[in-house]
């Protein structure tokens, strides 16, 4: 297969998003679309890749690979994409995916853009958007090499099924011995929260003066039926809130319908994670705080006064 687009993701949901976008790109560029699956052949999900538009599913049986790791995935993807293999490689930009993207690009001597938030075709060229300068700007970029590696932020595109006929091709690729040995994998304890898919997100920052006061925020979240998120300071520095809830350039990027920002000045490292919210509400006592510049609605006031009042009002609506 030449002139193709191949998608690779840790999860099938991730692959469906990329296939949905890949379908659009493959039509415009007149390219074949395939998906790489490293896993069990009997996986009932295999058929669903065709439902999202993959003409071909390339399968590496996981009996050959064991756990998914960057070294193995890099090897497999590079072997598939080299020479006459697909030219455009789309990878979900999880941490694993991002590492693989850089390594595959180096192996293929290809240009690479990571953490893409948009893909479009302009004059038959693939134009990739990503945040730059710490989130101050959006940079639109073109990869000049024939092989192009792009990692795309999770949940950038919405998956839509459009079933096609496709085939499964089992690949026989020699997997080299791992140089990095996995000793143990620990699921992160406590929460299995996924704030990235929350419809309503309340984020709190350094305006909160002590951990105990989080109860006030939890009450607001309950009233709004939303999830709680936070800035890096509150999770990485103070350890008040688990890192699963950290929003920003080194945390999660969310696109809720309603985002309520509380006691957050609005530094770009954090706001990058909320930029795609449909509606942004900011509460901050500093009228000059940058957060108000990106807000749809705001209240200038002390969060300790505003939040209880707001919670009460919203509760009253519900009763």
């Amino acid at each position, binding site marked *: 297969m030449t002139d193709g687009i191949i998608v690779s993701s840790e999860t099938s949901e991730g692959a469906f998003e990329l296939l949905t976008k890949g379908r659009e790109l493959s039509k415009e560029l007149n390219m074949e679309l395939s998906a790489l699956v490293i896993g069990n052949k009997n996986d009932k999900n295999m058929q669903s890749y065709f439902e999202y538009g993959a003409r071909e599913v390339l399968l590496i049986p996981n009996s050959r690979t064991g756990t998914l790791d*960057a070294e193995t995935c890099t090897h497999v993807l590079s072997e598939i994409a080299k020479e006459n293999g697909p030219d455009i490689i789309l990878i979900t930009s*999880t*941490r694993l995916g991002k*590492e693989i*993207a*850089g*390594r595959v*690009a*180096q*192996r293929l001597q*290809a*240009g*690479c*853009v*990571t953490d893409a938030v948009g893909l479009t075709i302009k004059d038959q060229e693939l134009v990739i958007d990503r945040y*730059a*300068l*710490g989130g*101050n*700007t*959006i*940079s*639109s*970029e*073109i990869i*000049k090499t024939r092989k192009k590696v792009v990692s795309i932020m999770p949940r950038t595109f919405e998956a839509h099924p459009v079933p096609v006929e496709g085939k499964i091709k089992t690949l026989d690729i020699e997997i080299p011995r791992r*140089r*990095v040995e*996995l*000793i*143990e*994998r*620990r*699921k992160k304890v406590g929460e299995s929260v996924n704030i990235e898919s929350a419809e*309503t997100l309340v984020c709190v920052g350094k305006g909160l003066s002590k951990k105990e006061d989080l109860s006030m925020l939890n009450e607001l979240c309950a009233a*709004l039926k939303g999830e709680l998120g936070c800035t*890096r300071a509150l999770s*990485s520095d103070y350890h008040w809130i688990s*890192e699963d809830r950290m929003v920003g350039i*080194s945390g999660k990027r969310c696109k809720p*319908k309603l985002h309520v920002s509380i006691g957050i000045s609005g530094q*770009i490292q954090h706001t990058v994670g909320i*930029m795609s919210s449909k509606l942004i*509400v900011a509460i901050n006592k500093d009228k000059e705080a940058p957060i108000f*510049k*990106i*807000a*749809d*609605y*705001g*209240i*200038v*006031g002390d969060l300790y*006064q*505003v939040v209880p*009042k*707001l919670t009460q*009002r919203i509760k009253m*609506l*519900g009763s």
Partner: protein
Amino acid sequence: MKQVVDLQQIRIKRDTREPVLEGLRVLFGDMDKNALEEAVRIKEKLGAKVTVLSVGSAKLKATVLEALAMGADEACIVLDPACEGSDTAASAMTLAAAIRKIGSYDLILVGEGSADNYSGQIGSRLAETLGIPQVTYVRELSIEGNTVTAVRDIEAALEVVKANTPLVISVTSEINKPRWPPLAQILRASRKPLNSWTLKDLGIDPSRVGSAASEVRVISNLAPEQERKGVIFEGDLDEAVGKLVNALRKERALP
């Protein structure tokens, strides 16, 4: 370590949405400092020589003093106007050449991403170029002999992995808190060895770096368009909360 402009100070031109970068001070990114701090801690615990390596502009000579003050023993900097506009591939090639010139090494520590573009490619490209393994997103590190045990954070899980040196390691901000160097260290920093190299010193043809050789072309780099309403309520808080709730109801944003 990568020298970046002070991102907090970037202003956006209102008419064109272009960022204004002229005159901004330059510094090392936070996660680059995490990488350096970890190197210095390893040195303090096990004994090691810490070399700071950076490619950048003429201002780098001043920036690198901070890294030396934080505890690096030596700095190697690549200063060459031809590097201006290099993409990650060219930067990684330049760094790899400099690492080969330095000669022997056990660990190459990098931040998980630079403060400005956060592309996270340099570690991966270095590992591939030098043909050595890489452990990414490390938040805990311990070393015994030539075996490195690391706890890495891959979002849903933590992985404990083992690998032998030489090794590329990328660190996350959780790994440590970079120190503020005491004054005495700052004063001593300028007396530490600082090697300044050009591309010629590294045997790199200038046509292979810089914006002309870039594999990735930036066609525009502008602040996102703001389409926010910007309705801010001030004054009496009960009234403000009432107005806000009414507005949110109209937007159908409330449960």
